[in-house]
């Protein structure tokens, strides 16, 4: 019973990855839009995009960390 609930909880924790996926997609789609409008800024914008990607990915990892904690620590 407890084992099953744990697995369900760990699975449910990964739903949050949907939001992170949208976020990362948004970051790079904005990058493509911006570079298409002003290709001369490509290098600078790529730096910002990587920064945004790392921040968004960190949020995704919070969710993943919760899933790991639920399934392995408790």
């Amino acid at each position, binding site marked *: 019973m407890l*084992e099953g609930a744990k697995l369900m909880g760990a699975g449910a924790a990964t739903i949050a990855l949907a939001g992170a996926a949208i976020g990362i997609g948004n970051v790079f789609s904005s990058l493509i839009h911006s570079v298409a409008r002003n290709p001369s800024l490509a290098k600078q914008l790529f730096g910002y995009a990587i920064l945004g990607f*790392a*921040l968004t990915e*960190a949020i995704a*990892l*919070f969710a*993943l*960390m919760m899933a*790991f904690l639920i399934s*392995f620590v408790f």
Partner: protein
Amino acid sequence: MFRRIFLFDEDSLNSSVTSYTNASQSTTTIMDYSLKSSDTQGSSSGIFTDHPGLNPCSERIVELQYDIRLKLGALMPKESAQKVLEASEALHGESNNIAFLEYLLEDLQQNGVGGEAYKDAVDLSKDLVSSPLEQFEIISLIPMKIGNLYFSFTNPSLFMLLTLSLVLLLVYFVTKKGGGNSVPNAWQSLVELIYDFVLNPVNEQIGGLSGNVKQKFSPRISVTFTFSLFCNPQGMIPYSFTVTSHFLITLGLSFSIFIGITIVGFQKNGLHFLSFLLPAGVPLPLAPFLVLLELIPYCFRALSSGIRLFANMMAGHSSVKILSGFAWTMLCMNDLLYFIGDLGPLFIVLALTGLELGVAISQAHVSTILICIYLNDAINLHQSASFFIIEQKRV
């Protein structure tokens, strides 16, 4: 000395509920243990009705196994009851052989920690561990205690010392004083690149100060950057320990920086720094709520930059370990189909390793930039650095 391998009889392995052939079954072991121990403590006859697979004449065996567990528990007082159980079960392996069990018990009683049986128990119980979080375990290498303070030299300290001393030696030997050249070779230009890498965000992100005043902060930022730049990828070396995958270390870094930034803010702006908590042009009745709302994210910065690094390292390493576990299990299944299918997880592991190396470096970069942004907030209150760049261009 008994040869362990010959003492396993097929009967005992098949009949008993707990079997140690598979490490992943540790949960069933735990459940079974609670059942068994409560039975043996009460009346030892009850266990046979619950476990029809056990031989009824093995009352002596159950007693012996229980004694071994108690003895092991007494020998390793630091371990939890579950670990002691795992160790003891790994040691006697649910054997039916009374002579073997008696031998184990005697060895434990006479030789204690130095005995063969104790070493076997420790070694065997290590193999049972299957959790991917096991790699983050802190082991004290040189135990030390100052009063009530736990001051041991542990494996994080070892790897931190190792990484940082190697990096500092590199930095020392390739730069000018340690024998560098004015035309740099590959190593020297690497070090110069790292040094230069920190100067740029400091210049770009912090506004409103002259260059010399800004660069006052760069040594501190540079140290943080170098620390995470080398400690993060160092964890990707197999069998090493990821220093930054520990809450304590990353939070120690981020809290000290947060406190430092707050002090800098008060130094530069005096009590006017508190206006940071209230955006300009807010109607007075709203002010109490807004101060609270601004205070929470400000304090959360201290937590978030530490947790970001920790979560990145921990989740990344665990997922690499889990996926390589998949690949290994498929490889060991002795089946052609699985052998071909094994390429899937294997390539995912390869890709994930590359991603992890990228993440390790980009996290160092991100934390550096965020420190600069926070520092800019503390110095200039609500104005962003780009505002100053626009101002300069206008003049």
